[in-house]
C-alpha cells in the first residue's frame, strides 16, 4: 500500500518518460505485480492518448502574417498621424474621444463666461488701464503685445 502511494505519485512522470532510471525500474516492477496501479496507469495513458490524438488545426502558411501586416500598418498610421497613444486603442474608443473632449471644452467656456459676467462689466480698455487682471484683458494684452 505504501509502495502504491509512492508509485502513484510518480506515475505521470513515468508515463511522460521523465522518471529517473531508478524510479522507472521501481514502477515497472510494481506495475507487473499490482493490478490496481496497473489499472490506474492504463487510465492515465488513455487520458494522455486522447489529448495527444486530438485533431491538429492548421492555417494557411501566410494567414496570420497577412493579418499581422494589416494590424501593424494600421498602428503605424495612427502613430504617424501624431496620436501614438491612439495606436493602442480600438476603433470604437477612438470614435468616442471627441465626446468627452467637447464636454470639457464647453464646460471651460461656460465657466469663463459666467465668471466674466459676475464682475462689473468694464470695457476692454478700462480693464487694461485699471491694472485689474481679468482673463479677457490678459488675453487681449498678450495678443496686442505679440502683434506689436
Amino acid at each position: 500500500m505504501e509502495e502504491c502511494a509512492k508509485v502513484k505519485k510518480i506515475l505521470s512522470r513515468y508515463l511522460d518518460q521523465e522518471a529517473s532510471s531508478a524510479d522507472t525500474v521501481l514502477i515497472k516492477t510494481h506495475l507487473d505485480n499490482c493490478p490496481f496501479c496497473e489499472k490506474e496507469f492504463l487510465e492515465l495513458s488513455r487520458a494522455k492518448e486522447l489529448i495527444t490524438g486530438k485533431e491538429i488545426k492548421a492555417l494557411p502558411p501566410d494567414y496570420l502574417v497577412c493579418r499581422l501586416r494589416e494590424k501593424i500598418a494600421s498602428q503605424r498610421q495612427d502613430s504617424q498621424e501624431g496620436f501614438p497613444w491612439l495606436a493602442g486603442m480600438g476603433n470604437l474608443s477612438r470614435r468616442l474621444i471627441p465626446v468627452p473632449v467637447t464636454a470639457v471644452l464647453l464646460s471651460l467656456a461656460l465657466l469663463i463666461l459666467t465668471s466674466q459676467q459676475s464682475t462689473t462689466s468694464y470695457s476692454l480698455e478700462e480693464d487694461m488701464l485699471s491694472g485689474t487682471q481679468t482673463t479677457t484683458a490678459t488675453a487681449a494684452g498678450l495678443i496686442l503685445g505679440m502683434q506689436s
Partner: protein
Amino acid sequence: MKNQMDEDTLYIEQFLGGQEKGFEMLVRKYQNKVLNIVYSLIGQDRESEDIMQESFMKVYKSLGSFRQSSKFSTWLYRIVVNTAYDFMRGRKSFISNTEALEMSVAPCAGPRDLLLTSEKEAMVQIALGNIPLKFRAAVVLKDIEGLSYSEISKILGCSIGTVESKIYRARQFLKEELLKFKGV
C-alpha cells in the same frame, strides 16, 4: 534542438536588423503550434485566432527586448499562455457542451466514421475545458506540444515538481470527465 534555436536566432537577428521578413518567418513557423495550444486552452475557433494574433503582436513589440537567455519558443509560449489566461479571466465560460457537440455535426452528410471522430473530438474538447485552468495549461503544453517538464516549468514560472503535480491532477480530472462519455 540546436538547429531550431539557431534558426530562431537567425530570424530574430534579421528582424532586429530591420528586416520584417525575420518576424514573418517566426510567425509562419509557430502559428499552428500557437493556434493548437490556444484552442486547447479556450476551445473557441475565432477567439483562438484573435488571441494568437494578439500574442504575436506582443512579440513584435517586444522582440527588441528579448534577452535570448531562454529559447524563443519558451518566451513565445509564456506570452501565449498569459494572453489566453487574460482572455479566460474575462470570459468565464469555456466552449459550452452544446457548442462543442454542434461542431461535431457535419454540414452535409458524411461517413459515419468521420461524424463519430468529430463527436469524439468534441467530447475531448469538453473534457479539457472542465479541467481547472491552473492545471490545463501544463497538460496542454505536455501532451499537445510535447514539451519537457523543464520547459513547461520555465513557461509557467513554477518548479518542475509543480508541473508534474499539475499534469497529474489534470489527467485525473480528464479521466473522470471521460468516464461520463461512453465509448471514448
